[in-house]
C-alpha cells in the first residue's frame, strides 16, 4: 500500500517535471508557429530568438505556454499527447491494422520470444559446457565477455545481409540479434547457478559415488533455478532491445523498431515516444510474467517460503 502511494507520488512528480520541461523545450518552435499565425512575439526576429535563452523567451512570451503542450511536432511531447497517441493506436485501432501499436508490438514480441528462446537455450548449453569442461571455462568464458563489447547495432545489418545470402529472412535474423543480446546474461547467471552448490553438497554426492549426470540433474540444475530466473529477467529485456535493433536496418517494415524509425524519419516525436513507451510496457510485462513463473516454479520446488 505504502509502495503504491510512493510510486504514484513519484509518477506524479515526473509528470509535473515533464510538463514543466515541455515549456523551454518547445518554446522556440511554438513562437515561430505563433508568429506565422500572426501573433505578436518578442523578439520578433527568428534569428534573435535563436540566440536567446529558453527561459528568457518563455518569460517574454508567457501567452505561448499552453501551446507548448499542444504542438504537432514538439521536441518534447507532453504526457497527455503521448497518452492520447497510445490510446488511439492501441484501443481504437483494429489490432490487424498496420497503424495499431498492438500489431507492431506483436511483430516485435514474436521475434523477441524466438530470440529469447534461442538465446536462453544457447546460454544454458554454453553454461553447462563451461561448468563441466575446464577447457571451455578457460578458453570460452573470456570471449563471452569480449563479445559484449561489440556494438551489436554495427553487426546487425551485416548479420541480416549474411543471413539473406543464405536465404534466411523475416523473423529469424531479428531473432538471432535478439538471441545475441540475451545469451550473455543467461550464461553468466547459469554458470553462477550451476556452481552455486557448495563443496559440502558436492561432497555428499561423492559419498554416494553419484555419476556426473546424476550430480547435474539432482543437484546443480535444481540449485541453479533461482539464478536462472534472475538472469532470464535481464535476458528477456535484452532480447526485446535486440529485436528492436534488428528491426532498424531492415527498414521500416513492421514492429516497434520500425515504428520508432518511421517516427524519427518523419519527425513524428509523439509517435516515437508512444513506441518507446509501448516497448517499455512490453518489457515490463515480459519481466513481470517471468517473475510470476519464477514464483510459481520456486514455490512448487519448495524454494520460496
Amino acid at each position: 500500500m505504502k509502495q503504491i502511494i510512493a510510486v504514484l507520488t513519484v509518477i506524479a512528480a515526473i509528470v509535473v517535471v515533464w510538463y514543466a520541461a515541455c515549456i523551454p523545450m518547445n518554446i522556440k518552435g511554438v513562437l515561430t508557429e505563433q508568429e506565422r499565425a500572426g501573433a505578436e512575439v518578442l523578439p520578433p526576429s527568428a534569428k534573435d530568438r535563436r540566440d536567446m535563452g529558453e527561459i528568457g523567451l518563455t518569460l517574454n512570451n508567457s501567452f505561448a505556454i499552453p501551446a507548448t503542450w499542444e504542438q504537432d511536432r514538439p521536441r518534447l511531447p507532453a504526457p497527455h499527447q503521448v497518452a492520447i497517441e497510445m490510446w488511439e493506436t492501441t484501443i481504437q485501432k483494429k489490432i490487424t491494422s498496420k497503424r495499431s501499436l498492438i500489431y507492431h508490438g506483436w511483430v516485435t514480441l514474436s521475434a523477441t520470444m524466438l530470440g529469447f528462446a534461442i538465446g536462453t537455450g544457447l546460454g544454458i548449453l554454453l553454461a553447462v559446457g563451461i561448468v563441466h569442461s575446464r577447457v571451455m571455462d578457460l578458453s570460452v568464458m573470456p570471449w563471452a565477455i569480449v563479445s559484449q563489447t561489440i556494438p551489436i547495432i554495427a553487426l546487425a545489418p551485416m548479420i541480416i545481409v549474411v543471413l539473406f545470402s543464405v536465404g534466411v529472412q523475416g523473423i529469424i535474423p531479428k531473432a538471432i540479434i535478439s538471441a545475441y543480446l540475451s545469451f550473455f546474461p543467461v550464461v553468466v547467471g547459469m554458470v553462477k547457478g550451476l556452481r552455486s552448490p557448495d563443496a559440502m553438497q558436492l561432497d555428499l554426492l561423492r559419498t554416494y559415488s553419484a555419476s556426473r549426470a546424476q550430480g547435474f540433474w539432482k543437484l546443480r540444475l535444481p540449485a541453479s533455478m533461482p539464478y536462472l530466473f534472475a538472469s532470464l529477467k535481464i535476458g528477456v529485456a535484452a532480447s526485446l532491445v535486440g529485436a528492436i535493433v534488428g528491426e532498424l536496418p531492415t527498414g521500416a517494415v513492421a514492429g516497434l523498431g520500425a515504428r520508432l524509425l518511421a517516427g524519427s524519419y518523419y519527425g513524428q516525436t509523439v509517435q516515437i515516444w508512444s513506441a518507446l513507451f509501448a516497448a517499455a510496457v512490453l518489457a515490463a510485462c515480459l519481466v513481470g510474467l517471468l517473475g510470476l513463473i519464477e514464483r510459481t516454479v520456486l514455490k512448487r520446488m519448495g524454494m520460496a517460503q
Partner: protein
Amino acid sequence: MIPIFGAIGVWLLGWWLNSRLASGPYADTRMVRFLAPLIFGLTVIVIWELVVRGLEVSMVILPAPSVIWDRFWDSLPTLWADFVQTIIKGALSGYIIGCISALLMAIAVDRWDFLRLGLLPVGNFVAALPIVGTAPILVMWFGFDWHSKAAVVVVMVFFPMLVNTVAGLREATAMQRDLMETYAATYWQSFLKLRLPAAMPFIFNGLKISTTLALIGAIVAEFFGSPTLGMGFRISTSVGQLSLDMVWAEIVVAALAGTAFYGLVAMIEKAVTFWHPSQRS
C-alpha cells in the same frame, strides 16, 4: 576443400592444446588463464581466414582477418580520431556524469525510504526503454557532436548504476547497523564508515556493467547523426561504401577499448575491495 579440412584440423589442434593446458599441472596459473583464451581466439581467427579464403566468401560480405589486420594498421590515424571522438569524448564523459549522478541519486534513495519504494519500480520501467529509441531524441536535443552521445550514455548507465548502488547500500548486515546504533552514530557517520565501504563491491559491479553499456551507447547514438568522425559514423558510412574491412577494424577497436576499459575498472575494483571474499581467493 583443402582449406576447410585445414580449418577442421586447426580447430582440433587448438582444442587439443587447450585441453592439455587445462588438465596440465599449471592449469591454475595466471599464465594458462591468459594463454587458453588466446589460443582459442587465434584458432577462431585462423579458421575464419581459412574459411573465407577456402569458400571465396566475397570481401563485401565478410573480409578475412588478414585484410582487417592490414586495414587496421593502415588506418591508425583515422581509427585514433574516431576513438577519441566516440570513446574519450562521448562514452567516457557520459560514463562519468552518469555514474556520479546515479551515485548521488542512490544516496538520496537510500536516505528516504519513500523514494526507494517509489523511484525504484519507476526506474526499472524507465530502464526498460530501448536505448535505440532514446538515441534519436537525445540527438535532436543535444546536437550532433559528442554531447548527445554522452547524454545517451548517461541515460544508459544511470539505472544499472542506481540499482546496484542502492542494493549495495543496503548490503551492510543488520548486525553491523546495530553496532553503529549502539555507538549512537549519526546518519552520515554510519554512511561513510559503514554503508559506503560495504557497498563498494556492488558499486563496482555497476561500474563494470556500465563500461560495456557506455561503449555501445556512444556508438549506437552516432547512427542517428554525428559529425563526420566517430566510430559509429565510420561503421555506418563504411557499410555504405562496402568497406567491410574498415567496419571490422572499428569493431576491433571497440572490442579492444571495451576490454581495456572493463579491465581497468576491474583492476581498480581489486584495489578498492581487496577485503571482499570474492577478491581474496
